[in-house]
């Protein structure tokens, strides 16, 4: 079932060359023509979001991501086209909207809750859950202006998670807060996912989109792309490269083997995108092969964020021959006790034929993971397992 259907959607803004904000100005220049231009954000946008889907929206600043979200929420009206929405949309885009600095947390919970569509009774019932999530217990009667920004965002998110809706819209929710808070947010996302809620996530955090959203929308000036998150993110990160290799990419799209996802897992095979130096990392590649392929080769490449190519193993060089693949499958590559130091790393995933000359699928730097230090004073990109010894004195 489709939860949201977007048909031929277009939105433009009128930008007058001269802004008239007062009655005086309007009267004085009543007979003067005010030139204006149309700023077309996007047009002929067509896509569908299925029930229970996590859908990502990415694009550079000013490309219209937030505007699209506002149209879905009903705040703005599109100029052309329409949106069909089946179900209740949570009406908020950002956290902590309408917080009154001068009022206490308790008072703000009631106002905010009402704006999110909760009745007084419901807010009453949900109060313990809100307080537990926000961890503000004994500050309940403190004015919001005295809250730290972290407390404020925890409180805001705690209220937002209580809104009862089928569709949630999140605009850069995780941009604020410390690691612990972000972890909490991720737990809520997982909960929503298990409850079959539909979520639309606008974010610059591509790891997050990669981890949670099966499909994504990339909006760029006058063009857009909807598809599997990996491909869409790849296109976003490497626009120039893709223009050059256009034919190649099209070949991939009709390829017999397609990489459907690649995830980084921890040693317990749980998805995780942040690791410590020394932790085990498992790269898990899911593929779909539309026909029987003999002796395929799967490859990985790890790049530092700055583009430095650190390593590039594949199943052939690692002496792990694969006889054949057909249908859906998963192949994992275990990196025990990684030696990478703090930083963000990009991952390329590919599948070649045995000669390694012809790629079935090649997703260049479209996945990422982050390494955080396990102690201070570490220098460089990697830390080898080495030892020192003193062999004599002068």
């Amino acid at each position, binding site marked *: 079932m489709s939860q949201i259907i977007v048909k031929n959607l277009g939105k433009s803004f009128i930008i007058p060359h001269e802004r008239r904000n007062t*009655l005086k100005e309007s009267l004085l220049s009543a007979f003067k023509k005010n030139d204006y231009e149309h700023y077309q954000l996007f047009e002929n946008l067509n896509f569908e979001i299925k029930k229970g889907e996590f859908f990502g929206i990415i694009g550079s600043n000013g490309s219209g991501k937030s505007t699209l979200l*506002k149209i879905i929420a009903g*705040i703005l009206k599109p100029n052309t086209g329409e949106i069909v929405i089946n179900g209740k949309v949570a009406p908020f885009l950002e956290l902590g909207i*309408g917080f009154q600095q001068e009022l206490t947390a308790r*008072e703000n919970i009631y106002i905010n809750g009402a704006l999110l569509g909760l009745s007084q009774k419901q807010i009453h019932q949900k109060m313990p859950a809100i307080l537990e999530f926000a961890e503000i217990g004994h500050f309940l009667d403190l004015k919001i202006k005295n809250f730290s920004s972290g407390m404020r965002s925890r409180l805001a998110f705690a209220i937002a998670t209580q809104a009862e809706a089928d569709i949630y819209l999140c605009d850069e929710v995780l941009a604020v807060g410390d690691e612990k808070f972000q972890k909490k947010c991720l737990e809520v996302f997982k909960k929503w996912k298990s409850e079959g809620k539909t979520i639309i996530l606008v974010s610059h955090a591509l790891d997050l989109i990669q981890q949670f959203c099966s499909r994504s929308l990339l909006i760029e000036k006058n063009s857009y792309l909807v598809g599997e998150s990996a491909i869409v993110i790849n296109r976003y990160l490497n626009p120039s490269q893709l223009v050059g290799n256009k034919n190649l990419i099209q070949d991939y799209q009709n390829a017999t083997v397609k990489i459907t996802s690649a995830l980084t897992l921890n040693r317990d095979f749980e998805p995780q995108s942040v690791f410590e130096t020394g932790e085990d990392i498992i790269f898990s590649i899911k593929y779909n092969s539309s026909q029987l392929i003999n002796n395929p080769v799967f490859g990985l490449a790890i790049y530092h964020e700055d583009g430095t190519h650190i390593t590039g193993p594949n199943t052939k060089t690692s002496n792990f021959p694969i006889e054949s693949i057909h249908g859906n499958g998963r192949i994992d590559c275990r990196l025990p006790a990684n030696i990478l130091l703090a930083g963000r790393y990009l991952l390329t995933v590919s599948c070649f034929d045995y000669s390694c000359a012809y790629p079935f699928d090649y997703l260049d730097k479209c996945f990422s993971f982050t390494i955080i230090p396990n102690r201070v004073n570490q220098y460089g990109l990697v830390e080898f397992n080495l030892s020192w010894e003193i062999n004599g004195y002068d």
Partner: protein
Amino acid sequence: MKRLLGKQDLQIIKELVKSEFKLRYQNSYLGYLWTLFKPLMLFGVIYIVFSIFMRSAIPNYPTYLLLGIIIWNYFSEATLIGMNSLISRRDLITKIYFNRAILVIASTLSSLITMFLNLAVFIALLIATQGIGPEAFLFILYAILLYLFTTGITFILAYLYIYFHDLQHIWEVLLQIGFWLTPIIYSLSIVPEIYHRYIFLNPLARFIEYSRDIFISHHLPELKLNLVLILMSFLTFIVGYKLFKSQEHTIAEKI
């Protein structure tokens, strides 16, 4: 016709009015007394000038004047604060989808509560000096009509204020003129008869005159006059509301 306000809308209005009240009064020791101070100050000055210096012969002048000032003060305060109600909650309008009319309705409602608090002072004065009759209960109807009329005007002002940022100054001037063209401090008896019909085109003149009838003169205005006032109030509210609603979807973009 769709329902004017849903259950959830009422819930939001309640919370907004509650918070506006707390915000208005919590930051000063005198709190509510400050709101009372303004009309009482005006009342004091006018009373001295007209009753003592100019020896106005209006019977029961203190209650006569105070009632007029309280009703006028409601209209001017509710429209001035209310026209700001959209712009001051820009954060809500651009980020959450909800019935925008709520903001205007909640704002004029907060002012209405202030009017009732002021009215309590008036009624205490009335009972102490002249006594009160059962006719006074009709004021409940007038208060509802006054609220509808004021909110109808505020809908239009709040919408226009988004486009014209100088509207507040213009409106302040118009209120000043209105104050003198409405029989608040003077009695209609000093106005030549031929002008009465023009004065009664102003619903506020009717609200004030009819309220004086029921509170001070202890007699009920004719049914016909009440019907005219009902018609004027409902018409203003409906026109204001419809205009606001027809443009509601553009507010988030223009604000």
